[in-house]
């Protein structure tokens, strides 16, 4: 079936079989490999993208569910080339190690700051608790989100 939606601000129209996951559509059909598959069963958050600004797990989302919607992937965050404040903050606080969780974490944090521009450290931890990271122990990730929030004020 034919599917039309916007990804990173750009309209796309693609043919997808009914069962296709949004994750595969993004990674394989559209070449947006910044969205990662860590588990394929909704447990790790590595595949987090924003659909109409809300965090969604692309591994559990059928491609057809984004018909007519706006999808933001990590590639769309610095579309103009200039790093987004969240991306800059992850660099500044050493919130990136292996980086496999990073796109998902940044997009989840993006959604958090849209909902709550001045979160506390506890609120950040709570909100990001669906995004697993095996490398950092989260401290510098939380620092990055708080720093980005502060910069935006």
């Amino acid at each position, binding site marked *: 079936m034919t599917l039309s939606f916007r990804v990173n601000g750009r309209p796309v129209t693609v043919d997808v079989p009914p069962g296709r996951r949004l994750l595969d559509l993004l990674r394989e059909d559209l070449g947006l490999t910044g969205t990662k598959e860590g588990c394929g069963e909704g447990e790790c958050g590595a595949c987090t993208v924003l659909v109409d600004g809300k965090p969604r797990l692309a591994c559990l989302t059928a491609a057809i569910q984004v018909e007519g919607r706006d999808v933001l992937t990590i590639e769309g965050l610095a579309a103009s080339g200039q790093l987004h404040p969240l991306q800059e903050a992850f660099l500044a606080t050493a919130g990136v190690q292996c980086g496999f969780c990073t796109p998902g974490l940044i997009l989840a944090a993006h959604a958090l700051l849209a909902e709550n521009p001045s979160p506390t450290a*506890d609120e950040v931890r709570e909100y990001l608790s669906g995004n697993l990271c*095996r490398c950092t122990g989260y401290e510098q990730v939380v620092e990055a989100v708080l720093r980005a929030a502060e910069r935006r004020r």
Partner: protein
Amino acid sequence: MTRRSGGESDPIVGTPVPRLDAEAKVRGEARYADDLAFAGMVHVKTIRSERPHARIVRLDLSGVESAPGVVGIATVADIPGENIVPIIYRDMPLLAAGVVRYVGEPLALVAAETRDAAREAAARARVAYEDLPAVFDPRDALAHGAPPIARPDAADEGNAFNHMVIRKGDVAQGFAQADVIVEGEYEVGYQEHAYLEPQGVVAVPEDGGMTVYGTLQCPFYVQNAVANVLGLPLARVRIVQTCTGGGFGGKEDVPSHLAALAAVVAWKLRRPAKLVLDRSEDIATTSKRHPGSIRYRTGARRDGTLTAVEVEFYYNAGAYQTLSSAVLWRGLVHAPGPYRIPNVKVDAYSVATNTVPCGAFRGFGSPQVIFAHESQMDELARRLGMDPLELRAKNALRVGDETATGQVLTESVGLGACLAKAREISRWEEVQAEVAAFNRRERFKRRGVGVSTVMYGVGMGAKAPLLDKAGAYLKLEADGSVTLAVGTTEMGQGAETVLVQIAADGLGVPVGMVRVAPVDTSRVPDSGPTVASRTTTVQGMAVLDAARRLRLRIEDAVRAILGCPTFTVAGHRFCHPQDPARSVSFAEVARWMWTRNWDMGVTGWAEGKPVDWDPATGHGNAYFVYSYACHIALVEVDLLTGETRVNRFWAVHDSGRIVNPATARGQVIGGIAQGIGYALMEELPSRDGRILAPSFTSYHIPTARDVPAGIAVAFVEAPYSGGPFGAKGLGEVPLMASHAAVANAVSSATGGRLRAYPAIPERVLDLVAKGA
């Protein structure tokens, strides 16, 4: 050796340089294994054994071959070289031939146009087995009459893959001198690496050989395995590391097997072949931390002086050797702990069972015995009525002391400083008082503080000294920028940034001028494996060696350009000593060298300092140097639910000079999180050799809510003369220390004694009941 004349630029080593690989990662541009695609690529799925120990009577793949989308299959008959994945021993087949020895052992391969098609086709394999008696527990495997699992040429005796010992002094006499003796048995199960990026490789037939791209730690191991199964010379096999989403040891030996599987398919079909594991296959069939049973006995005088330690431990190795002998040896050497002990007896066994082969995981055989030795120290402190930190300080190794293996420590022992600093930053006395007050006040909650101290032998050690080498190529480009090529890998730990800092400092250029080339075995020097927290130390020395050689050549050029025997340095310019107006920039020097056909490339080399070992007695200089740490954890236990939270954490490390304090801090906090998981929540049950629920749904690793905020990290830097700028290893140490501090805190809070991981609520409630 040249000496930097000073003042030319600020030192880079010791500063929090932002990670060089981070920008590509935050942009989503970093390419991991599964992000690669090649024209004509097929997707490979492995057909695996469903039985723990069986003869294969018939392998019927007709349904697989005729399934939609299938391009081809591969079986043992399609292996052009030897059906062996060589690791330390040569006992593990690439594809099971005749007999399977664990659930999940590879039997055959199917390649299809899509991943889904390959998966669906693989499910159509029909295998007829004739079950053989199987054993899953090391005690059963060692019992008289147990079915033979280990290959005789890969085992010391029967199913005992290895039995290793330390004999020092006379433990009988040591225990006779003791006023107090504590004794305990400790049990730990699997720990799964849970690197966020699953295992994956792409094999591409090229130029009559094979190129494999993959997420991996040890490209030269993979090269060896692929060459062996294809029957090719090493020079026709090229391994290229992709951006690697975490390793922790899990990508040390396993990628050799996976790359060889994909390579056999690619070789047969003459097409690129991608093999990426999904999470459940990854958890169920790849290596993990060895389950262990440890019996431990410690004797001490009334004043706390240790007199004897006796340890016997068994690690469940799984069906094949893989890395178990090396893991066991590290466990052996680390079993006595970082203490002065005159009489020591250790017996270590790794045992073959019909279970998935275990392998390397951060700490490499040491966390299991550390749980035991740190529990013993606390039990001893309690019996003696001593402060646990005090008891450790009293026995802590110092410069001039002899370790349990008879090694005299000649330098860089920061353990005492770690203990003192941990006491200070945790406000040890006040924290104890606060905890006591809390426990008096609360009815249904208890807090406890726990401490642990560890030592860590840096590098491969005397078990595999031939691997403790590293090379580095440095190439000065015509514009003064610099390309660095090394054979160790970045897997998330921050090695690339640290090595660039060392190169930049050695050369006297800013970090931004140095770029690291991708790791490709055809273009980088063999630097041994990226394991054993050795990269900063051994690889760093090779980089520094190269930088110093190149610097000498640059200085020759400067003298020729300025026409004088000496020069001064200001900023990044070299100046004539008498006439500062005559000066030349680093880039101009490079250009000058290039236009005069100077050799712009250098090679650096380093080896770990000598080590030695006598396997009969366990005597020797086991490692060239040790790192140390002291961790303190404060936990809170809910007496009604048994739930445990870590509220506060303090970590002090001696890893010599810290090259990058920001990435080092991240490594420490990440290791603490993994240790919290190990002690409190990570549990992977199995029955009859089958991992029961291989998914993140039931295997829980710590989330942002499970790791306490504000972990305090401090470094005491006891410099090591054999490391670059005095650096030692760090990567594994935080995990090693953290779980034991948490375990001791749980015991202290409950008043019981935790003797098995993880401290899940049922187990904690049990402790509460017993402690009350």
